[in-house]
């Protein structure tokens, strides 16, 4: 395991940011910490980095207890949401920063062979990294002359320069517009396949997590709700929170399921089908969203294709028979959430 977190808790005054977190992340994996704002995922990332200290529990990185190690001794690469670019340094000097700090030439004057060799090594490494993040032609610019996406790639190169044992990214694409975000997301996945460093990134965007990560850790209200691959989480959510966070949900006959996992018939053919009256029909592109009320008084949302809706002549006031599709992911609906027994 590359990162082992045991029993980590953190409070800010009365606010419980994290409580009893246990988590192990294997080497070379790309992990997403997914959850709503204020759920504790950024705090967890900052504790791994050493930018925050946990009240209780331990953090072990590559078999070494890092709980009391300050951030500068942990050898982690950290990428901030708002880039944290060194504004007074050029792009190349930003990337070189960690290397310059680490290159010990002692107090020798700058023209000695040792110092020169160090400088040449740094320069070669910086050029390599700038090529990796496609910023070679911007080496001499200041960060203020770059776009947001370019700045974030620079920040990533800067973090990678120190050859970190783990790479931590805090909402790395959160400040970028939708198109750039999508590009960088694909690019991060490809970069990770090339570099293979253990990577953890925080996001509140479930699409981003599902698309990029090998494994997703769903964090909510200071606890881990579920850990699993994107498929596991989507097909077999541990509870209605995970289900609800990963996509739209509705309730039918006391279970939570996805609106597109409901079979619709005009007659009572299927076992367990419930009778419902259409309240509203909304057409969004290829999709038709139907709001219906069952005889038991349950509000159900169903989504189907336009063609399907047309074939069934779905319109307001029509009577439908609704049943969960075979193999649909469902969880029991719990209007009052029970905290115990929920978790990884």
């Amino acid at each position, binding site marked *: 395991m590359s990162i082992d977190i045991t029993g980590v808790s953190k409070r800010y005054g009365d606010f419980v940011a994290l409580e009893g977190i246990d988590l192990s992340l294997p080497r070379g994996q790309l992990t997403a910490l997914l959850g709503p704002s204020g759920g504790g995922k950024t705090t967890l990332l900052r504790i791994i*980095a*050493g*930018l925050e200290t946990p009240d209780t529990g331990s953090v072990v990185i590559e078999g070494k207890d890092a709980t009391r190690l*300050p*951030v*500068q*001794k*942990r*050898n*982690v*690469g*950290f990428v*901030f949401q*708002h880039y*944290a*670019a*060194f*504004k*007074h340094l050029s792009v190349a000097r930003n990337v070189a*920063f*960690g290397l310059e*700090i*680490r290159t010990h030439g002692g107090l020798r004057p700058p023209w000695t062979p040792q110092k020169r060799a160090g400088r040449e090594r740094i320069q070669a490494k910086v050029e390599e990294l700038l090529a990796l993040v496609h910023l070679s032609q911007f080496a001499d610019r200041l960060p203020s002359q770059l776009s947001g996406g370019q700045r974030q790639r620079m*920040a990533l190169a*800067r*973090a990678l*320069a*120190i050859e970190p044992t783990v790479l931590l990214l805090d909402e790395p694409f959160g400040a970028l517009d939708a198109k750039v975000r999508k590009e960088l997301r694909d690019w991060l996945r490809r970069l990770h396949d090339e570099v293979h460093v253990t990577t953890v990134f925080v996001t509140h965007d479930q699409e981003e997590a599902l698309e990029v990560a090998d494994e997703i850790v769903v964090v909510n209200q200071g606890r881990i709700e579920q850990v699993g691959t994107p498929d596991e989480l989507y097909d077999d959510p541990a509870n209605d929170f995970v289900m609800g966070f990963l996509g739209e949900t509705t309730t039918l006959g006391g279970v939570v399921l996805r609106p597109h996992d409901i079979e619709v018939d005009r007659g009572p053919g299927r076992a367990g089908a419930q009778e419902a009256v259409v309240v509203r029909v909304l057409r969004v592109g290829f999709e038709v969203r139907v709001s219906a009320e069952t005889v038991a008084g349950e509000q159900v949302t169903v989504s189907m294709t336009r063609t399907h809706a047309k074939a069934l002549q779905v319109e307001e006031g029509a009577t439908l028979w609704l049943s969960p599709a075979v193999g649909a992911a469902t969880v029991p609906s719990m209007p009052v959430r029970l905290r115990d027994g929920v978790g990884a």
Partner: protein
Amino acid sequence: MAERTRPAPGPTTYVLRVLVITYLVLLVIWPVSLVVTNTFANGDEALRSILEDPDLVDALRLTAVAAVVATAINTVFGVTVSLLLVRTVFPGKRILSALLDLPLSVSPIVVGLALVLVYGGRNGWFGPTLEGAGLQVIFSTPGIIMATAFVSLPLVIREVVPVLQELGDEQEQAARSLGASGRQTFWRITLPSIKWAVVYGVVLTMARSLGEFGAVKVVSGNVLGETRTATLAVEEKYLNFDQEGAYAIAFLLASVSVLAIVVVSLLRSREAHR
């Protein structure tokens, strides 16, 4: 007054302009220009006689030394306190912040008297002990430096604090995560980011220190050639009806301040071009 949608300035604008200019001329420009004309009423004779008088050269030197040392102390202290105020949380922080403005609001003469109460050689709280150790504070250079440092204390802090606040600490965290120690982070990241604020603070502190009169008057004792500063010399010359000499020294002091202002405005415009 903002010219709303009308591009052409109306009569109100002209009236206001005239008012402002008249006010500045009566209060600042005319008096200061009279100092200059009076200084050079007999050519450069007044200035030359000042610079040839060893006592006055001593006074100018003492003022320069006090101002430079006080500025150096306040720069180091100011940057440290600014970092403390912005980057850390501790009980009593707001009280400290309010206290730091005290030197600007208290009359300098009160500052001088307060220093005498603490460090006075005969009756001060602390003075006799120090004097026993061979260090005379009041009626000596250390006292002059302390009084000067006291009155110009908040100027660096008030320049640096807002810049630090706006800067945030993400860059510093990033530097730490890249392996930089606290010291390396300060010299490589924090200081370059606040350097213009520090420069403004230093220039303002310097200008204020050169012109300090009230507090220095109380603590110096005005010993000719030893504890007489340039501002005290101006007063003395003036009271002894040597108005030409007073104006000449005043002119020297004023020109250093003007120079400081010119330097600041040049720096500001240079920064704006970045």
